[in-house]
């Protein structure tokens, strides 16, 4: 069975009452009509499915970006809206989710690796290779100086407690998994994420 609804009808139905008229719940997505009412602003946009990065409701969002996919043409996101198919959010976003575009494009986004040298009052731009090499050097030196293979009781502990890490609760599972794997292979035990606070 297929059912054709326009996007506008779909939202109307949704507004009547989520339980009684739940099109999305029945598996009918308003795909065919998608393009027809967004003719102007969103014509030719690439739509990418994503999730809001703030709270744990995990609302579905659609990211609209332009760029024709050709080499030298860079996609940029210019519109964000709720994903009407999403069973929890059904197209809704709260004021935070509604402002996601401003986060993606915030003036405060960082663009280059930088360092603040001890005692100075400024950021200095450095290359990725410099940054990562200097950090690796710091970590190795600290690890070599302070790694504990045996504790005072003669237990093998193989741990490193003088460098620690906070992991990001907005990062992906894949980042988190890689973080866990690397951190433990180095013997680090000072590790937490926002779940601690």
């Amino acid at each position: 069975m297929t059912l054709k609804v326009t996007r506008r009808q779909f939202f109307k139905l949704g507004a009547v009452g989520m339980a009684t008229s739940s099109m999305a719940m029945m598996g009918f997505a308003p795909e065919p009509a998608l393009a027809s009412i967004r003719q102007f602003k969103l014509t030719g946009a690439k739509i990418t499915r994503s999730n809001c990065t703030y709270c744990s409701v995990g609302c579905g969002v659609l990211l609209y970006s332009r760029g024709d996919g050709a080499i030298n043409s860079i996609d940029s996101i210019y519109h964000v809206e709720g994903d009407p198919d999403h069973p929890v959010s059904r197209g809704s976003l709260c004021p935070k989710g509604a402002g996601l575009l401003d986060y993606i494009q915030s003036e405060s986004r960082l663009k280059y690796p930088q360092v603040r040298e001890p005692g100075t009052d400024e950021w200095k731009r450095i290359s990725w290779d410099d940054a990562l090499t200097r950090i690796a050097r710091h970590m190795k030196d600290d690890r070599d100086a302070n790694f504990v293979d045996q504790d005072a009781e003669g237990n093998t502990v193989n741990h490193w407690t003088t460098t620690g890490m906070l992991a990001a609760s907005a990062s992906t599972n894949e980042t988190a998994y890689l973080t866990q794997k690397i951190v433990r292979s180095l013997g680090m035990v000072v590790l937490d994420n926002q779940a601690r606070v």
Partner: protein
Amino acid sequence: MAGLAPTFGRGAMTNHWVDIRNADLILVMGGNAAEAHPVGFRWVMEAKEHNDARLIVVDPRFNRTAAVADYYAEIRTGTDIAFLGGLISYLIETDQIHHEYVRAYTDASLIVREDFGFEDGLFTGYDAENGEYDKETWRYEYDDEGYALRDDTLTHPRCVFQLMRVHFSRYTPDVVSSVCGTPRDKLQHVWDMVAATVVNDKTMTILYALGWTQHSIGSQIIRTAAMLQLLLGNMGMRGGGVNALRGHSNIQGLTDLGLLSDLLPGYMSLPEADEQDYEAYILDRSRPDLLPGEVSYWRYYERFHVSLMKAWFGDAATEANNWCYDWLPKLSETLYDVLHTFERMSHGDINGYICQGFNPLAAFPHKAKTTAALSRLKYLVVIDPLRTETAEFWKNHGEFNDVNTAEIGTEVFRLPTTAFAEEDGSIVNSSRWLQWFWAAAPPPGEAIPDTAILAGIFLRMQQMYRDEGGAFSDALLNLSWPYRYPAEPSANELAREYNGWALEDVVDEQRNIVCRAGEQVEDFGMLRADGSTASGCWIFAGCWTNEGNQMIRRDNSDPYGVGQTLGWAWSWPANRRILYNRASARPDGTPWAERKAVVWWNGNRWVGNDVPDFPVESAPTEAQGPFIMNQTGRGQFFARDRMVEGPFPEHYEPFETPIANNPMHPNNPLAKNNPGARVFEQDRANFGSFEEFPHAATTYRLTEHFHYWTMHNRLNAIAQPEKFVEIGETLANELGIVKGDRVRVSSKRGHIEAVAVVTKRIRPLQVAGRTVHQIGIPIHWGYLGETKRAHLTNTLTPSVGDANTQTPEFKSFLVRVDKL
């Protein structure tokens, strides 16, 4: 979520967002879902509108959730154990408990050791000098085979039920009202509404968030709620559960993957220093059943552990070297949590620190201490898409961050990373759904994904170890790195790895091949302890099978009309949506009520509208309990030795309390605050007294902002441009403050300034014969970004944590308010 696991077996939201619509009663306490989880909260409104549900809010403030509630009761911050403990007592004394459920599905009938006891606020085994318990007596009595003794009549004086009854009998309505400041009639009204859900076809769901976790007794507050739901038979049911609404988009995933000091992926744990013997380590964690024939699923711990070691160390992990057991770091402290870490950092015992998408200067308590600690670091690495206060802690921002830059010798690296819209991957929402998303555009400038940054640092270190040698390097040199582009492991590769695959053919007991070498495992039941499988996170097994990525699924159909959408994304464990759903059926396998049914026994197997959280072929006659992760198979009223401060919850005052003593134990100073809490000396010296700082304060979020991120966003800055605090009318009148005045709020640790919002929504409470005023302080705003510059709220908060999790007590502390 340290209160849930000792009760139910797992520390996660038990039901899910859409299921809230199936509730008949929604109790929101320790959270403000309408404000902090607005879109999820729509399902509460859905329950009200279409399921005739009622909504109760119990909170210090008449908040946005309260504004749409059917009933609101005020409460003093940090007294929820008293409120819920009194409710438990009321249910027992008025015989409004679900007898059949309690008898069959909880540990109420088990007998506790004779020498266990509780006196004037302390359980047996307290060592006042060290502030620690010896938990030896917190156990059941066992028979010769190691099974717990029981009395199914629940009359034995030492059965869990009777001990619990006596324990909470002290929480009479008068006592509770005096501790909580909740008027008696309101208390009674809430209790009666809750009691009505004891019947088979009515369920209550409890929604809570950081308003419960961020207390020195946070884990025990949550446990009290969990116990309440067991008494009412609301667990495993549609529209029931204890629902922890997590704060961040992937805080659940990071916890599932074990990014906490003591954990490994899938709630496995690192060994302690004295656990030198591999077999003893495994034995300790493969918890045997404590009642005959229970599932006690952790018995397979070794399968998950060995599979993890194979995923990490590949061929280097062999039976002969105990799967690289010595390579795992071992813990000399129970927790290396953040309070512990910043304490050490403030003493110069930490040299380097990496903050990945985390802003401790804004997010941790007692900002002055955090600043002092960061200033002692040799190097700090900040990986973030945005500017953060932490990365610039050395910069002088006038009154908001008054530091002496030249004196701070920390070398700080700031590395730009991708935001969610610029990367592929999955996050786990509060309902345990793993949802996959895709990059829509490249990141700005030279920003690169976290995975590339981490790999970049790691591969450089590896090379240095190869070139130069150095401290123990077997683990880091042998770390399995099967990625096509080593400098940037892809999300797909990593997801396939944490799902896991077979290294050799995997066979079942009848020697049938269940998974061929090289194939992805379909579920954690295929994992083996003999080294034939690899899996980076056993509870995620099934998310990326041979059919491909299950997390991208987008079938939102709901064929049963109950809101389960089993084809949308993928939920751990094994795509089960409602945890412990076996308990939605009677012991004989029929649903307690049709309208609450989740799974049932069809004569041959368990079927239903969800994936059974239970062995599908375990007949009701086998009488296995529904809480399959617990050694008893049952929900635990008695936490045994799994909680730091006692097997039953008890009310203790916040470390900064607006009253002179703990009304439950006025004459025992040891029982004033949580006796199991860890307090560092310099932090204790920084606690204020109610004589100097008379008002109880609590922090919270607003719907327009997310922590300290959205102040960098135009739209959010327009919506909520300036820092404010909420003050009740009565107190404002006393202090001569009117709406819009600027005020200074001070604690022992510092002060902030903000606009006063004078409100009827916070009322003075009568607590233990004293009038207590509460102040509401939103956490948002700082001195970076687009909003009006302001002090960070955590300038004020105390550095002390929950006894189990060390989550800071952000929700109860003392302040003074002065008009500027």
